[in-house]
């Protein structure tokens, strides 16, 4: 980015800028006791100031790391900024991580101070205290249940703020001096990557990188301080951090923290965000809910929904892109807007959304089209923690469902002969913390970041990602096998929640399926099928047939694609339990860890390929508090019909 003329090269300096320019604009909102409480930039800055001075009084120094563990709460973000004011480095961590997973980052970064949201997080920190001798101070935001804790490391955020107020009274100028010492090249934050493979790595990002990317995207989308964002994903995830910390600091918009995880839907309706981000799985869950409720409608309602959705499917996307459509279709779409699309957007809390992004994994084309066709400007973006998110973004009016758009200003793309994507951008990470070897592997001498993603740039200059370079495999007969591509196709069905496809160096493709409890549960209720739980439903013949139907539709689809016709799913089984990050089967961002699953459920994979029609499984499950238990089940293996490739059919 061009050098900022105002010298606003760090987040604390941006904060000072906001209290000069827009002190009374809302910075952050939180729903508390049923009412949205607003913190203006002025109030937010006061909170940051007292926390920062409190931290300084507690011995937090320039270059120290501050662990932040909690949901989206004003205090957590204030603490993030407070650490940066002192030249420290916030390290947000996933609030749903098990205690043992938290030990590594704390040891790795030799963290001395931590801010925890509530008793739950404090308990986890206390549990790993013996392994983390450096951790000397734990501050908690929510005092509930904390009265009986006598550990000397503990202190409430209120007490910390009180300490800060005292030291502010003694030396009011201290903080301004500290803030002025900061520069854009300093480390702003460290994010531990979810680690699809091996131990997590701490990604070090500078103020410059984050501010540059946040500003580039904000400029591209024309974000202003009137925009509103709902912060509902973990703050430890770079995406949420960009949307609820970096970008509001750059543009001055307001972020809103939902009351609880269960209230996100209704909070979103109340707030009406204008700028929205959702990973595909969230969009999928929303669509599933909508579909279920539509199925509960009376006959006429269902019919008119189907009719208007067909209209939207045909012309909605075109209208959003500003292209010309037939007059009749435009009229029908306007009618649909009144009766269906508008109310539907309202129910989803998306009435005011100007810009919506999805990323994290490939999105099913039908799912993507659904949101665009009802008038939500959903766009794909491509990026990762190492690139401060924004690498490619689809510009308004040039949205294609199978690409992620052209490079954002300032980003250069290149490909290796193996089709691996390389990136150079001002937003690139500085290094992996204390891991020069991994840094050297990921970032070469010329500053190109090796993404590990395979793809190419199409004729319009849009980037298309196929799969991970290491995941793209070959079937035994040498044809292409792109597991994620197949899984994504399967997952688009509302009944299928997760799928894991196997086939690399095998003669055929087989798959594990997790059905969607909500959708299938509802489906079963309609058929008066009693069931006791996930495992019980999974064993039902009817559910098996339902899943088979979905798979056969995918097979028919695949048959139409010459390169992938051999990847049709031959056999499948329905797993006895949901794949879960706690069992390490998914990453914290819910990506399937295919290798780990193949290893863990080797008996199942062998049974699939061994031609058996049932298999017994006994497996260990881990609960969130770390306890384990054994469960056992008999799983049926079923065959799915395959279709002749399109070309062959034509020849016949």
């Amino acid at each position, binding site marked *: 980015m061009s050098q900022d003329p105002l010298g606003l090269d760090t987040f604390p300096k941006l904060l000072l800028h906001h209290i000069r320019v827009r002190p009374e604009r809302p910075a952050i909102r939180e729903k508390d006791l049923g*009412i949205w409480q607003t913190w203006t930039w002025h109030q937010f800055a006061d909170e940051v100031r007292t926390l920062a001075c409190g931290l300084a009084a507690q011995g937090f120094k320039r270059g120290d790391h501050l662990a932040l563990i909690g949901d989206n709460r004003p205090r957590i973000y204030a603490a993030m900024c407070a650490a940066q004011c002192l030249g420290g480095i916030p390290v947000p961590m996933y609030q749903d991580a098990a205690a043992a997973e938290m030990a590594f980052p704390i040891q790795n970064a030799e963290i001395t101070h931590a801010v925890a949201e509530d008793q739950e997080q404090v308990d986890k920190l206390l549990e790993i205290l013996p392994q983390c001798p450096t951790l000397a101070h734990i501050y908690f935001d929510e005092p509930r249940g904390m*009265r009986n804790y006598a550990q000397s490391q503990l202190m409430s955020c209120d007490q910390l703020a009180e300490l800060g107020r005292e030291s502010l009274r003694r030396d009011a100028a201290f903080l301004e001096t500290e803030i002025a010492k900061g520069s854009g090249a300093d480390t702003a934050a460290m994010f531990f990557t979810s680690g699809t493979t091996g131990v997590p790595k701490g990604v070090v990002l500078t103020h410059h990188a984050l501010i540059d990317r946040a500003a580039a995207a904000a400029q591209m989308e024309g974000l202003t301080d009137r925009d509103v964002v709902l912060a509902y994903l973990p703050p430890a995830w770079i995406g949420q951090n960009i949307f609820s910390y970096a970008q509001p600091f750059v543009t001055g918009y307001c972020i809103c923290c939902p009351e609880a995880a269960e*209230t996100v839907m209704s909070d979103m309706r109340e707030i009406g965000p204008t700028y929205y981000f959702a990973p595909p799985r969230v969009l999928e869950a929303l669509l599933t809910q909508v579909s279920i409720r539509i199925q509960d409608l009376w006959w006429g309602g269902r019919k008119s929904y189907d009719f208007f959705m067909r209209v939207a499917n045909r012309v909605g996307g075109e209208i959003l892109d500003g292209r010309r459509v037939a007059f009749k279709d435009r009229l029908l779409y306007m009618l649909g807007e009144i009766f269906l699309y508008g109310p539907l957007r309202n129910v989803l809390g998306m009435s005011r959304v100007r810009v919506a992004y999805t990323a994290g994994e490939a999105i099913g084309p039908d799912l993507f089209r659904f949101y665009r066709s009802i008038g939500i400007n959903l766009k794909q973006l491509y990026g990762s923690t190492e690139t401060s998110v924004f690498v490619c973004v689809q510009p308004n009016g040039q949205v294609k469902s199978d690409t992620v758009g052209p490079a954002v200003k300032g980003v250069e793309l290149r490909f290796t002969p193996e089709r691996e994507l390389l990136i150079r951008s001002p937003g690139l990470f500085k290094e992996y913390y204390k891991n020069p070897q991994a840094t050297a592997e990921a970032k070469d001498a010329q500053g190109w970041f090796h993404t590990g993603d395979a793809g190419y740039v199409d004729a319009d200059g849009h980037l298309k990602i196929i799969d991970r370079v290491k995941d793209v495999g070959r079937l035994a007969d040498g044809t292409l096998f792109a597991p994620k591509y197949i899984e994504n196709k399967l997952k688009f069905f509302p009944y299928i929640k997760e799928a894991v496809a196997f086939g690399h160096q095998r003669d055929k493709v087989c798959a594990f399926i997790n059905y969607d409890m909500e959708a299938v549960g509802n489906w079963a209720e309609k058929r008066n099928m009693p069931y006791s739980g996930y495992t019980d439903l999974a064993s039902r013949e009817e559910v098996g047939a339902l899943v088979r139907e979905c798979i056969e539709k995918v097979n028919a689809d695949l048959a139409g694609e010459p390169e992938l016709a051999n990847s049709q799913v031959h056999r499948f089984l329905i797993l006895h339990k949901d794949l879960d990050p706690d069992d390490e089967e998914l990453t914290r961002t819910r990506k399937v860890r295919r290798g780990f699953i193949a290893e863990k459920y080797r008996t199942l994979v062998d049974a699939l390929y061994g031609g058996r029609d049932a298999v017994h499984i006994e497996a260990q499950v881990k609960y969130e508090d770390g306890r384990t238990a054994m469960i056992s089940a008999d799983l049926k293996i079923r065959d799915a019909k395959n279709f002749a490739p399109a070309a062959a059919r034509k020849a016949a």
Partner: protein
Amino acid sequence: MRESEISEAKLREHVRAHRIGEVLLSVEGVSLAFGGVKALSEVSFDVREHEVRAIIGPNGAGKSSMLNVINGVYHAQQGTIKFGTGGAAREFHDMDSHEAAELGVARTFQNIALFKGMTALDNIMTGRNLKMRCSFLEQALWLGRAKREELEHRRAVEEVIDFLEIQHIRKTPVGKLPYGLQKRVELGRALAAEPKLMLLDEPMAGMNMEEKQDMCRFILDVNDHYGTTIVLIEHDMGVVMDISDRVVVLDYGRKIGDGTPAEIRANQAVIDAYLGVAH
């Protein structure tokens, strides 16, 4: 759900926020009969401040009758009930349920007794009823005092909602809620009355393991956070032994045991009542 994973036994290891104090409620020689059926005969026990007191016993032992007597729903033919501490203690022969509520006794019911068509929020708000001082007219006209009062009560209710973690069902009619949540709303309503003594009639009946653990956690939290004294009837022995400080055992309307969970576990009369004896 963090509550569900922490075993109750572990919870009890915590240092108590409120020390168990003086006797808050004492029941002396209470007898109750329905015609010829003796539901309770000469039952005496006491409940101390800030304590969790369980009443257990086989079916038909008179547990619910006991609660109903304390609560003023039934009127004992004999015996007295003393409620309150120190100089404020009052003795009753015959308590009226309205009076009991005013004194600070709240309860939940074995069969959920909520207003099914009202939202969780409104249901909990009814728990504040006795604390509302404004006249019907003031409320209808939404005059200054009524408005202030309503806001105050709403705040108290929201705190209960926050405490019981039911924000997401605030505006849902309770009839549509699953059983476990309805039970939680009912607990919320009792809690909204800011009672000194809370009577819980089988708070965990019909719940699955996870719901039970949640409920245990909430009961202990209430006891810990608000210092509310709790008397509960429960069938699940594991739960009773884990969360209560002292246990009374009734059988055929008579008290056959009284003491700490450990004492009750070793009490021969109790074992006989539960397992039966050879005659």
